[in-house]
């Protein structure tokens, strides 16, 4: 009862929080001295990045681990991981787009090989790779195992990729010229709005994953139900006509 009430309230709650964030971010808070209205992207981009890089990916990795560990092996974790990645891809792409839009006026270009942007782009590709792997036809548990292993491999790889990209940038002369710090000074109401944006988008992510998960579960239930019926049908093949 409690859990259903909780699940049902996430959607409306996240909608409300996002609306409040939007109102505060777009209307109430002041524009920045240097960046003007572009600074309002600070209520969008960091929150999206947080969800994509840490919440979505972290959840996918943890669920994959839980699936692979014998004691907690359940297709539920596989479905949760897949849902997290699917929604995570959306957030990652939005992170890249908002990052690009935010940087354009300051950098003058749509893309720079900034370490964080590049790492995020690689993460997007890894997410897409996960989804491509899931589309390969296979038995439920075989697919779950492959996906889980891939997710964990990705988790191991992200630090390696991240460091190599940072070294690639910092050891190259002139890197700093292209990447002036985008962070504006944040105080008072802006700080609260920023915090709210993190909460709002995390909740939005949670809601989207819940919906996606329910869809996956319904699909899965079709498969699991009727083992006894399948056995009976199989045996009937052999009955004399």
């Amino acid at each position, binding site marked *: 009862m409690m859990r259903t009430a909780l699940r049902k309230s996430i959607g409306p709650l996240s909608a409300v929080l996002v609306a409040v964030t939007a109102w505060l971010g777009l209307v109430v808070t002041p524009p920045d001295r240097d960046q003007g209205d572009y600074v309002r992207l600070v209520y969008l981009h960091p929150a999206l990045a947080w969800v994509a890089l840490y919440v979505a990916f972290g959840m996918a990795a943890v669920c994959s681990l839980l699936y692979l560990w014998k004691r907690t092996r359940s297709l539920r974790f596989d479905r949760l991981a897949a849902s997290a990645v699917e929604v995570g891809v959306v957030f990652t792409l939005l992170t890249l787009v908002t990052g690009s839009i935010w940087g354009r006026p300051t950098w003058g270009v749509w893309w720079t090989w900034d370490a964080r942007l590049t790492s995020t782009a690689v993460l997007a590709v890894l997410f897409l790779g996960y989804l491509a792997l899931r589309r390969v036809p296979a*038995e439920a548990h075989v697919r779950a195992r492959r996906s889980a292993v891939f997710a964990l491999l990705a988790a191991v790889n992200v630090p390696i990729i991240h460091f190599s990209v940072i070294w690639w940038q910092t050891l190259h002369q002139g890197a700093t010229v292209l990447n002036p710090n985008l962070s504006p000074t944040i105080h008072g109401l802006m700080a609260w709005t920023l915090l709210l944006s993190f909460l709002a988008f995390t909740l939005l992510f949670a809601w989207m994953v819940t919906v996606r998960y329910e869809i996956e579960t319904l699909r899965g239930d079709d498969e699991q139900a009727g083992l006894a019926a*399948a*056995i009976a049908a*199989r*045996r009937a*093949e*052999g009955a004399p006509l």
Partner: protein
Amino acid sequence: MGPAIRLRSAVALQGRFPVLSGVDLDLDQGQVVVILGANGAGKTSLLRFLAGLVPVTAGMAEVLGVDLATTPREVRRRVGLLGHDAGLHEELTPVENLTFALRAARLDPTRAVPALDRVGLAGRPATTVLGRLSAGQRRRVGLALLVARRPQLWLLDEPHASLDEATRAMVGELVEEAASGGAAVVASSHEPDLAVPMADLVVTMAGGAVIGTEQGGRGGGRHVA
């Protein structure tokens, strides 16, 4: 000699499809059972199941004293499986294939050549890459591997199919030698005339289960009701 196979209502799934829908089977060591049945009845699935390659979904399954539901890997080294496709490497010669398999199974690699002799593949065929040999010769190499490995349970999937007279006779001899030597043999077949004479027990499958059992022509077989 103890039981080689004990199955009670064994169920096995391939994805969602029950390839085995409740199989009962008893076989002692030193005995030969032939499995008859139409295509799709589950004969090949049963053989793979006995080799520990298909997980147990329900029921009891004990092979060579090993519980397949908990430790299927234990049984793998002690069984030999031979299908239509001999399961060997095309780019290696029979000698190389057998030596590789024997070494992998921690057995004496010098068993390879005598085993190939036994199946009539001495000399040049033994040192020609598998890809250049005929289907019959490849099957013989598969049989040679079983002869060399001497598993306690032989699993043969339609061993007579597409073989000539002489090779078919050899299959019968090898089965008899294996059984007399204490191994259990399970062979599926579409040709009762060839298979029944070499069997203690003849079992018919349909719809993933055993629907009938009879005595075979080997003599000294046990009848399971």
